[in-house]
């Protein structure tokens, strides 16, 4: 690696000031992507002259859950922190499932949620779960603080709505409604240490007579960004939570997604996976909503 100036600020304001002053300085957290990119020089950006570590900033740490206000995940929370959180496992199972399959144990102990989201990979395993849970991403920067819904954050491959010198501070997720459940799965040839060929998350809220009151479906690795399957959501809204409607939803999701062929799988295979996995995730999320 080429050399750089290293900073480890202990306050958020200090980090923002360093980003501004260093002009092109790159924030780093776990380093599992950035260090590798810098080593391989396979970067989409010029080699940074400054690296600003975010790990010592208390405001970016921590996971808190409250039954009425919901969940807050600080940007430097690691995949392990999220996957091991009892609150997240209980109330937001798809988020724990996404975080719990990123790379290896080593990766999950280092990689942060901020890094997973801000890298803007279409295959990021925490993105579909946050999309189906209507997460808000809290961002701070030179022009102050703002909050963006998850589905406005991802712009293109490797691109997010973050403006220059802005930082992701935390992810906020509303408290789940009664009789709701979520699930995430991805298809990979290897169980660990792999990148999603397709990822599917679903979140459902059921009425007392087992109809779908609220539905979110999100797909990873089938578009330039993680995306919601909105046509499928519209179709399912108000339908009974039955095998028949889930099977039809699977066909709708396969038809509405627009994957490409690459080294991980052909467009045709991905479309097939979207159908199969959407049905499975709807069933799993509905079972969880029923308390199963």
């Amino acid at each position: 690696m080429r050399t750089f100036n290293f900073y480890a600020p202990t306050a958020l304001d200090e980090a923002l000031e360093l980003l501004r002053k260093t002009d092109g300085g790159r924030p780093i957290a776990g380093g599992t992507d950035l260090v590798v990119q810098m080593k391989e020089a396979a970067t989409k950006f010029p080699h940074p002259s400054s690296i600003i570590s975010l790990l010592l900033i208390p405001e970016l740490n921590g996971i808190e859950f409250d039954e009425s206000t919901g969940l807050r995940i600080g940007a430097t929370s690691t995949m392990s922190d999220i996957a091991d959180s009892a609150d997240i496992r209980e109330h937001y199972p798809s988020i724990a499932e996404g975080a719990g399959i990123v790379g290896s144990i080593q990766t999950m102990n280092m990689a942060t949620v901020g890094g997973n989201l801000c890298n803007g990979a279409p295959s990021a395993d925490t993105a579909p779960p946050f999309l189906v849970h209507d997460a808000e991403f809290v961002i701070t920067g030179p022009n102050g603080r703002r909050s963006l819904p998850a589905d406005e954050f991802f712009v293109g491959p490797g691109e997010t709505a973050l403006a220059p010198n802005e930082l992701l501070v935390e992810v906020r997720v509303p408290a789940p409604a009664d009789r709701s459940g979520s699930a995430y799965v991805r298809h990979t040839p290897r169980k660990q240490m792999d990148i999603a060929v397709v990822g599917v998350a679903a979140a459902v809220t059921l009425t007392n007579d087992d109809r779908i009151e609220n539905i979110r479906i999100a797909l990873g690795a089938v578009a330039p960004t993680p995306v919601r399957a909105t046509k499928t959501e519209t179709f399912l809204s108000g339908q009974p939570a039955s095998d028949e409607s889930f099977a039809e939803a699977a066909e709708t999701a396969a038809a509405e997604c627009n994957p490409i062929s690459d080294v991980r799988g052909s467009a045709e295979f991905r479309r097939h996976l979207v159908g199969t996995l959407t049905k499975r995730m709807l069933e799993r999320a509905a079972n969880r909503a029923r308390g199963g």
Partner: protein
Amino acid sequence: MGKVNISFTINGSSHQIDVEPQWTLLEMVREQLHLTGTKEGCGTGDCGACSMIVDGRLITSCCMLAPQADGSDVTTVEGLLANGDLHPVQQAFIETGGVQCGFCTPGMIMATKALLDRTPKPTLDDIREGLAGNLCRCTGYTKIYEAVMTASGQEI
């Protein structure tokens, strides 16, 4: 591009040193502290040969910047030795033949230590998952799994 002054504990002894900002924890430990038990395999976080335990968590030291180790407590394979005796995990790898060329072994041993710290009696699936980030290109996985079973006091 000045050096960075950091303080940390490694294998129970405290250090305060100046490090190159672009060095990884692995480079610092091998080149500056001359603890060469930890190996570099891929250098990109895929093979696990460089695994160390930092603040109780297994990490790949080839992906961690040395300055980010400031204030932390690091254990490398050298740190498992107690009063000249091998750690039970090390002993189990010897007894079961869980070592072929040996290059992945320090990482395998650290991953096993981290696994058993969390899950003292792992199932075979737990072991496969716990060691998924560690590659053995001699492909000696069966003996390695047997070493983990032995180290956890379970029948093979």
